[in-house]
């Protein structure tokens, strides 16, 4: 149970970073931290008591396996997170070229 609460605390730490940091790169890193807490939550959910890694050995005796589906979901989610972070980085680097600063308080051209 404490593992799930720690995942949640990691998520909140990332959320704190997104809300309060001024540097654009730090916002991107905080979003990555939030993402990792989600992956941890997924990987923890698949655990069954006394299970081993889900690699089937057809000759040996039948064992209790950990649920393999969340592991596949985490792989897919990691790749999606990679794409999102890459897109964010490309936008940040172009923003730096246009505005000349990484500070988010300077980037408020659109109002109303």
């Amino acid at each position, binding site marked *: 149970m404490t593992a799930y609460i720690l995942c949640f605390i990691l*998520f909140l730490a990332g959320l704190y970073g997104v809300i309060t940091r001024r540097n654009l790169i730090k*916002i991107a890193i905080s*979003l990555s931290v939030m993402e990792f807490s*989600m992956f941890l939550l*997924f990987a923890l*959910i698949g655990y069954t008591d006394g299970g081993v890694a889900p690699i089937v050995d057809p000759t040996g005796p039948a064992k209790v396996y950990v649920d393999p589906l969340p592991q596949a*979901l985490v792989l897919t989610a990691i790749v999606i997170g990679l794409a999102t972070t890459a*897109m964010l980085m490309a*936008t940040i680097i172009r923003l730096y070229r246009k505005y000349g600063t990484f500070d988010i308080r300077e980037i408020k051209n659109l109002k109303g």
Partner: protein
Amino acid sequence: MNPLIPLFVAIPLTGAFIDMILGSFIKGFSRCFTQVIILALASMSIYSAATTGTNPSVYYVGGWEPVNGIPVGICMVMDGFTVLMLCIINIVGFLSAFYSLSYIKRFTSENFYYALFCLMTAGMNGVVLGGDLFNIFVFLEISVISAYALVAFGVEKNELEASFKYQVLGSLASFFILAGIALIYWKTKTLNIADIREMLKAGHDRPFYIFVELLILCGFGLKAAIIPFHAWLPDAHSSAPSPISAMLSGVLIKAAGIYVMIRLFFNLFEINESIAVLITTLGALSMVIGVFLAIGQWDIKRLLAYHSISQMGYVVLSVGMGMILISRGLKHEIAMLAVAGGLYHLVNHAAFKGLLFLNAGAIEYTLGTRDLKEMGGLRKSMPATSATSFIASMSISGIPPFNGFFSKLIIIIAAVMAGFYFLAFLAILVSIITLASFLKFQRYAFFNRKEGKEERVVKEVPFPMVFSMVVMSLLCLILSLLAFPGIRDAILTPATDILTDPVKYKDLVIGL
């Protein structure tokens, strides 16, 4: 199994990558090829709409049939509601792609634009065809990442800032959705929507389910831009190129936001009364706050973006009223009328809001400005744009005989019949204020006579843009026929049936 279902996703995906490869060798290839692909998709979706009304179909990917009543593979479902959304996505997509034949010429990298456009269409098709929860998430991310790139397409200051805001808030929404999916999987050990409903009937952990429903509501509410999650929408929809604004505001916030919300709350969770009241309140707030924020705008695309928030509030309000009535277990016909009104308004909004954004794009193309105070007297020099924009403005304000009138009428009648008099009053008030806002738009843009300013040579926009706008305005007129009983039973009633009937979806997917 219907073989057309996976083709809706495979064809635009192939088209996007063929565009990228051959577009760099053959000049002008990606323009024509994209039109052909999306036209093929649009005709496939119209054909499916004509044949799917009474016999919905399921496709088990990879041939994994259900075993002992438990679905073991990924399944794609095409029922009445799905086919309605497919028609909107592909038809509005085709008209936007045709419009962008002449609009995009001023940008340099056309190949990327058309490839991203096809990817966005593939993602949205995958979302509405999904019967599996994680599959919906993956296609949602595909379409939304393409939208981030398309919003920032002309890389100026405003567009990059708008895209950055959209990305941060969109990523936050994705994390909430992923958390919700993880918690649902923890309790039910399955990802199939029909199967989860079966497993959820057994357990009684009430606070846990309300927490999961709130997470899903926050996640998809951020994607659909209802109040209080609307902060990214005015910037993103006003800074994007105009055909992309039409796709975003007309289709993406519906397919990626409202569609999944309706599907999950009706077909996955048992309808809880407090959540239904919360959804109705959010819808009413969106309606009112959206239109009050829209009145004071002088930038045409920002004005239209705020009106999107307001009209989405209508849809959420109507669906929420249906949910309240079903959860109290009484007046089933009025609940079905409310849900049908909401879905009809969804379809109408795609048509007239897409047309309004295409008009705004045409005005920006000829004049180079988006400020209402600098325009005037365009009625004589741009007759096609002026006429279609008049039709769209009358539609969104709810003037008969255009389609907005019928859908708003159904929503207000359902509200009055169910006893929610305050909501009906709010709906009428918001409609009057919408009319005021669009009369201001029409007056300043088209009917005003400008005196004293220098005369610019203003001509009508090129043929592809005129064609798209005229066809979409014809669509506005044709969609008002959907309110009549014969056609409504063929198209709208299967959609509401499969949502509100508790066993139809399960019988369709698991097939027992």
